[in-house]
């Protein structure tokens, strides 16, 4: 009977998805601008220095974006929120654009570092504007984020028009790509991702309560303000690190949690871990396609996630509607 089913994640589903992800990672390592056989993998510097960190990064970023999307959709009680809604991506883009204009590309993590700092400053600014005393009003937060995102996009356009010779580099950065991911990115991303996702998993039950409304959550024993603050801090850090190392990978954080919900129901104790694994798998597959479909040139992974994801999601919605 459905009503008495387990509510936390099914370990068999988690195990199956994990195995599938690992298999896909192994397969993905073989394909790219250069294809490998199993035997010569470990001797190739291309594999060790480029392919492997890239595969790991796509998995980490996919997991992070999906988990943050699931968390935001519950915190803001709004199905349209995605991880970039608080202005993290626009802040990062502005930082990256500034770095590119200043010619910082030659420094190790010059662009990424600027993007990270700018992303965090932007979100900090948004929080300052939206908080009244020590309470955060989520609608104001959302509106401030949208507004500031628009303002910053306008600023970036302005910068690009003034420096047309660097336009391509800026546009390409904002489209999102794992093409330049290296071990440096992995070492920065991995601890943030593990810690951040751990925090969101820990608060899975509280996310459910928040979906029932802030006041209802509070009267059922959820420390609403504290939970929101901790979750927003963890998710913001994750998204800022993700976007500053690989640009904006759209659609994933919005759609993966919804797709999981259509299949597994609304309980965040399932939605968060399943989204993590499905999102990782999805971005991994998209990035593999991005570097193989038109090789030797690369497609931006951000456009591929939308091109693959949108039809898939519409199909799911359609099927769901039919079954209701």
């Amino acid at each position: 009977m459905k009503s008495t089913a387990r509510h936390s994640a099914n370990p068999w589903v988690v195990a199956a998805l994990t195995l599938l992800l690992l298999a896909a990672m192994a397969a993905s390592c073989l394909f790219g601008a250069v294809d490998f056989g199993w035997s010569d993998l470990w001797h190739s510097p291309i594999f060790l220095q480029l392919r492997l960190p890239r595969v790991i990064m796509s998995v980490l970023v996919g997991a992070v974006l999906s988990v943050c999307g699931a968390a935001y959709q519950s915190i803001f009680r709004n199905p349209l929120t995605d991880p970039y809604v608080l202005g993290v991506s626009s802040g990062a883009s502005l930082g990256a654009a500034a770095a590119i204009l200043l010619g910082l590309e030659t420094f190790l993590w010059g662009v990424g570092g600027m993007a990270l700092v700018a992303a965090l400053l932007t979100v900090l600014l948004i929080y300052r504007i939206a908080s009244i005393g020590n309470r955060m009003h989520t609608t104001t937060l959302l509106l401030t984020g949208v507004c500031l995102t628009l303002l910053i996009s306008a600023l970036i356009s302005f910068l690009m028009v003034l420096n047309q010779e660097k336009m391509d580099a800026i546009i390409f950065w904002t489209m999102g790509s794992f093409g330049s991911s290296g071990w440096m990115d992995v070492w920065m991303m991995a601890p943030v991702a593990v810690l951040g996702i751990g925090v969101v998993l820990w608060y899975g039950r509280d996310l459910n309560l928040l979906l029932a409304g802030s006041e209802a959550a509070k009267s059922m024993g959820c420390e609403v303000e504290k939970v929101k603050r901790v979750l927003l801090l963890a998710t913001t850090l994750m998204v800022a690190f993700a976007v500053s190392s690989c640009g904006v990978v759209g659609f994933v954080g919005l759609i993966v949690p919804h797709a999981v919900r259509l299949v597994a129901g609304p309980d965040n104790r399932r939605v968060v871990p399943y989204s993590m694994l499905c999102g990782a798998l999805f971005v991994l597959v998209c990035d593999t396609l991005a570097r193989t479909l038109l090789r030797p040139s690369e497609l931006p992974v951000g456009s591929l996630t939308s091109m693959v994801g949108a039809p898939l999601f519409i199909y799911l919605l359609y099927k769901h509607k039919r079954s209701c």
Partner: protein
Amino acid sequence: MLTLRNIQVSFADRRILGGISADVAPDRITAVMGPNGCGKTTLLRCIGGLLEPDGGEALIDGRPVADYPARQLAQKLAFVRQHPQTDFEFSAFETVLMGRNPYQHRLQNESQADWDIVERCMRQTGTWHLRLSTPAQMSGGELQRVMIARALAQETPVLLLDEPVSNLDIAHQLEIMRLLRQATDKTVLIVIHDLNLALQFCDDLLLLHQGGLLYHGPVAGGLTPENIRLVYGVKAHMAEGRIIFDYQARP
């Protein structure tokens, strides 16, 4: 034991509650009455810890509500809102199961005991057959009963209900009031507009008038024609233990 100590609330420049003090009798049903906008909901929100009063405090077992950690407060006190939020996809069963949250550890699954309590509360409120329905599939009255079931599942000694029966037909009104009557070990504070329903089912009355407490005591002693006229501006008289409103239909 629920005590209100000089609770004061103002919104902007408008004084809503100007110092409400009362010892709410334990294990009884106390009606909170007064005209629209007189601060009934505000008073309940202060008691429930959802609104911090500008002055004064509510105490449960001698301890101010604001001093309780959220989890402990949720084991003492459950709150049924007037307008429950309904834009989520959880089934009625999952919704009621959330009421068990204050007793669960973070990463633990609900136990068989939790499920049994949820089933009992849903049967008591006549919502067990709705257990697989989402809010969108339920009527306002059904949803209200699910919310009451969730509050009961919290197994608290204090129960606050903000107009729980206003959306219900007379049969379900009586059913809910009878249910509250049966919960003899609970201190129930209920905002209710139907004077006769209050007269029939409630023990005590907190009658609010212009930000102050006009009357606190047994319900029959408070719902007098004089008080009704003063508070609501409506003429009424008693007949056979019921309140009859003197209402002249237009010709």
